[in-house]
């Protein structure tokens, strides 16, 4: 009897260990990875899709844009994800990596825009910044205030030092760490945009593009910029407690907390839904997802998921994604991407 019990126990363990290997050979749900910025939008679509069709709800992991593309490009087969979300366009190097691993046909779908806002507590007055102010306040090295084409370590302590029109408050900005896609977009759009206002820095782009990037994209490390982690809710709470601080995050967090915080003007435009949608607000970026064409038809539901995502009731001007803070694309662009997605037109090269 005891022998029997021991034997069954052993058989059970072995079975428990090896059963999943067999079960893993097929997958009946769509597997999605990628950007934490697109995550809140993709999950809404996935949920609607799962509830309104007979397919299983797709699984969505929040791995970051770079991490997602790495997993996505690792190969073809059920163990690799079908779709990756990205808060930036796929890079040439990633595209080549994909091709090398046999992921030859990728469908690119642009889903809309996300504004990056600098916000502060309602208890203080709204800040009226320009991109040049942002660059001067946050860059590690800035043009010598005394004049000349020389870089000096950032000497500015207060906003008034940067621009006499701004209040006499010390520079204190809470923002995402370097691993974040929001940070990448912020330095590219706001800081680089501000740096370009100096003609000689803009000229560097041609003569020494590496140094140009280093100047534009390096954020100061002397404590004026505080890396607050990837959790944007935390930044909102800290802003509420400290009216002197500014925070950097995605528009959807401003949209959900309008009673507590306010967006700063950038180049005279406030981050509002309409201003971002028509491109007036300068710090906004497109969001994408990429689909592995060879998985369509192998994994059930990919095509239907694309149809759901690109339908007007999802990403349209009044769709449910706009309720969640996604800034929709203009009508013509939507039509283009939705027809591309539904006819499964693959990306041939990155222009």
């Amino acid at each position, binding site marked *: 009897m005891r022998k029997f019990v021991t034997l069954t126990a052993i058989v059970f363990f072995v079975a428990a260990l090896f059963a*999943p*290997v067999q079960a893993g050979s097929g997958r009946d749900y769509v597997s999605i990875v990628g950007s934490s910025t697109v995550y809140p939008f993709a999950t809404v679509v996935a949920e609607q899709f799962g509830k309104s069709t007979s397919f299983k709800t797709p699984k*969505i992991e929040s791995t970051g844009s770079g991490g997602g593309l790495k997993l996505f490009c690792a190969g073809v087969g059920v163990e690799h994800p079908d779709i990756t979300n990205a808060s930036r366009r796929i890079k040439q190097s990633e595209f080549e990596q994909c091709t090398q691993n046999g992921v030859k046909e990728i469908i690119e779908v642009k889903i809309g825009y996300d504004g990056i806002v600098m916000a502060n507590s309602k208890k203080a007055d709204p800040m009226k910044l320009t991109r040049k102010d942002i660059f001067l306040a946050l860059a590690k090295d800035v043009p010598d205030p005394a004049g000349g084409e020389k870089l000096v370590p950032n000497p500015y302590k207060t906003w008034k030092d940067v621009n006499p029109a701004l209040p006499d408050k010390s520079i204190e900005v809470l923002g995402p760490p370097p691993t974040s896609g929001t940070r990448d977009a912020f330095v590219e759009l706001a800081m680089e945009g501000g740096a370009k206002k100096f003609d000689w820095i803009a000229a560097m782009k041609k003569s020494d593009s590496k140094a140009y990037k280093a100047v534009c994209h390096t954020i100061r490390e002397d404590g004026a910029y505080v890396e607050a982690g990837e959790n944007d809710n935390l930044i909102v709470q800290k802003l509420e407690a400290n009216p002197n601080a500014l925070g950097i995050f995605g528009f959807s967090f401003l949209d959900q907390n309008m009673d507590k915080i306010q967006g700063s003007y950038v180049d005279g435009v406030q981050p509002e839904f309409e201003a971002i949608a028509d491109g007036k607000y300068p710090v906004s970026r497109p969001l994408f997802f990429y689909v592995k064409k060879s998985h369509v038809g192998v994994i059930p539901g990919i095509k239907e998921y694309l149809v759901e995502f690109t339908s007007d009731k999802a990403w349209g001007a009044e769709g449910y994604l706009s309720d969640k803070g996604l800034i929709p694309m203009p009508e013509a662009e939507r039509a283009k991407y939705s027809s591309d997605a539904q006819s499964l037109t693959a990306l041939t090269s990155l222009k």
Partner: protein
Amino acid sequence: MNNIPQNIPDRAAKKERTLDIVNRGLSKRYRAERRFRFYGLSAIIASMVFLSLLFISIVGNGYTAFQQTFFELDVSFDPEVLDKQSLATADYQGLVKQSLRNMFPDVSGRRDKRMLYSIVSSGASFQLRDMVLTNPDIIGQTLPVWVPADDDVDMLMKGHFDREAGEGERRLKDKQLAWIDQLVADGKIEKRFNTTFFTSGDSREPELAGILGAAAGSFFTLIVTLLLSFPIGVAAAVYLEEFAPKNRWTDLIEVNINNLAAVPSIVFGLLGLAVFLNFFGLPRSAPVVGGLVLTLMTLPVIIIASRSALTAVPPSIREAALGVGASKMQMIAHHVLPLALPGMLTGTIIGMARALGETAPLLMIGMVAFIVDIPGGFTDPSTALPVQIYLWADSPERAFVERTSAAIIVLLAFLIAMNAAAVILRKRYERRW
């Protein structure tokens, strides 16, 4: 004779002096002791204050999530909308909108209607669909149905929104507030116990989000962990304690087990990614992989606890068993193990409680994911309770703040239950010699 009177005061003076020294020092020593006790006590008070602050803030934030605002809608299940052929795909959203329009007939204009529709959760149409699918006889009738309110309305009813703020700064506009006030006056809106929170999986709509999916994922993960780590841990401990010779190799193994117990958990996640996912090709996000990774993490804890439980069994018991002719295996199986088992189980439960609260290793193997369907097995994609807390804490909707705290309350309840089980087990079965 002369010496004596001389001597006595001398001695007395001497005695007085020692006593003086003692007495003088005494109050200082008492003070030192009081200070010492005070330090210890204040350490305890400080930790109790922090603990109660934690509990107060979590419970204070979270208890409201156990209630949810519901509307009463008079839904007419219109046979023209509900075609018998395609009941699953009929326009249930349309039914919800129709009943809202019937309740507020004066609302006109596209914008206003859109605002009106947005006070009801998008889950309402799925609720109607389920009602019709389970009981098609209701088609043609008009029934009052309680449907969940949108999360913004829920937040308003729970007092998390400032009504006095300007219209542009609120999620709900003046008109919506007027409609809600009218509903309140009519008694068509009320807060009920939030069963959804305990019976459904994750959702991006806070009013539809629940923790059952995450709890099921944690359950499957822990089953795998328990089934693997307990037998392996106990077998390892028994071998090391009862059979292994004392030499340099066993010393090395012992040092390594102790080191392993202190390895940061993210390292086990990386190991799991490299071995279980990339080498063995197990599926991502599956509880079986989570269980395997957490097994690696809890094994050292269980081995260490089991070994100390075994050493606590007095040698006389072993010698007595061997003395009456038991074999070594009989001695272990019949006498030593039963006596050491309570200690081993306590160690196991504490190890499992730690595994239940672990997120970092699960991050690497894809269990930090949005999963709506409730996992039904060891290979279904799933998350775990602490991962759900992490995901909700990062969501922009304000209603997720209270749900995060509520999920923490549930996780803490599980942890307290497990630790209490360990204490009871120890109290009841542990023997001291």
